[in-house]
């Protein structure tokens, strides 16, 4: 496809950012269908696709070919994977179907990738919901530039959930303030999800602690709303998690009584 065409269109070459745009972009359809483009080329080709019905047809036909390649690799999934996934699904809120009115009111922002997600943490939700929803819901509900970060957070959750000994626990007080955790004793990992703690008083922060048998509480950092906290160095001494209100920037040791506290016994810690 490198020859210069003799027709009027064949001579036109456009240079944008050093990439030759034009007929050669069509030749990317096959590597695109095989997911064999780098991210930059993928974006370039997808932009091209939007205005090229012929390419869309071609990509659809090629996708049917790759589906067969996928089928050829089919292997029964491990049985316990099914249980884990169905459990997580029961606890995971779905993204709101588009179009989402809120987005339209804001005026023209494309709904794709920005659709706000209903973070409906029903009081009756399964314990996993506190954690799984909190994080998974973040993953695709934000602007594109944060997507990578949030994918990473989702991956952390999936990683903890995937541990063979992963267990979940949650607590909630009469005012609905809660703390949820999915933890793996074997990996020393936990994902902690606060819910409905409200904003701390002016000039104060919510700080998360792990309480330890025979040792001082250790800070797991300041909370940012309902953003879950991932930690990977819990050990057997960890007995509970607690959130306190601390002066701006946090304290070295808790200085107030916990707003909410969750024992880790049921998730395999704190002997």
């Amino acid at each position, binding site marked *: 496809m490198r020859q210069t065409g003799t027709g009027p269109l064949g001579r036109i070459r456009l240079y944008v950012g050093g990439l030759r745009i034009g007929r050669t972009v069509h*030749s990317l359809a096959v590597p695109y269908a095989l997911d064999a483009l780098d991210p930059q080329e993928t974006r370039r080709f997808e932009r091209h696709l939007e205005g090229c019905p012929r390419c869309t047809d071609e990509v659809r036909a090629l*996708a*049917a070919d790759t589906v067969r390649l996928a089928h050829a690799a089919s*292997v029964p*999934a491990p049985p316990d994977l099914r249980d884990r996934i169905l459990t997580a699904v029961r606890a995971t809120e*779905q993204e709101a179907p588009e179009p989402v009115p809120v987005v339209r009111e804001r005026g023209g922002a494309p709904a794709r990738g920005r659709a706000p997600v209903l973070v409906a943490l029903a009081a009756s939700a399964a314990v996993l919901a506190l954690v799984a929803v909190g994080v998974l819901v973040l993953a695709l509900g934000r602007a594109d530039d944060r997507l990578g970060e949030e994918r990473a957070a989702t991956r952390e959750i999936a990683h903890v959930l*995937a541990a063979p000994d992963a267990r979940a626990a949650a607590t909630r007080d009469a005012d609905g303030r809660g703390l949820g955790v999915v933890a793996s004793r074997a990996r020393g990992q936990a994902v902690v999800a606060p819910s409905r703690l409200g904003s701390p008083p002016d000039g104060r922060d919510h700080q998360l602690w792990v309480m330890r048998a025979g040792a001082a509480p250790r800070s797991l950092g300041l909370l940012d709303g309902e953003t879950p906290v991932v930690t990977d160095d819990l050990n057997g001494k960890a007995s509970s998690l607690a959130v306190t209100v601390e002066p701006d920037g946090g304290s070295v040791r808790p200085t107030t009584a916990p707003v909410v506290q969750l024992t880790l016994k049921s998730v395999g810690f704190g002997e």
Partner: protein
Amino acid sequence: MDADALLPLVARGDQKAFEELYGLVSGPVYGLVRRVLRDPAQSEEVVQEVLLELWRTAARYDPARGSALSWILTLAHRRAVDRVRSARAASDREQRAAQRAEAPAFDQVAEEVEGSLEREWVRRCLERLTDLQHQAVTLAYYDGYTYREVARRLSVPLGTVKTRMRDGLLRLRDCLGAAA
């Protein structure tokens, strides 16, 4: 019900439909992810991510762009490829992978279970490709290499790789069309 019928139900929050869909797609999704990543534990993680994402974002599926199965497998394949590429970038496993690539490991996983008819046909048809077509297609799709990496690996120009990939897929399509 097939995946095209189930996916709209899943998009409306039907957990039973999701269970049924899981039964249909978990084999191909797991097999494909494992074919790309090879490591069983990592594969399970990625499959979890993909299927949870499928549940969460089912409403985004647009039938005009292809079948539901194709959408789901594309989701899975992209995620697996992302993962294997970042793993390669992080640890310099490329050298060893290059050596293994000499003998494509396509059969390894597939032979762990008894073959289905369709799988047998695809395999048979893959064998009818020329070496270069076969390697171009499988290094990209099953091993997660970009076509640029495939070109380097096979020491052929970029244009040649793209052509071989296209020829390979078309020949596969013809062969399978004849089999159907």
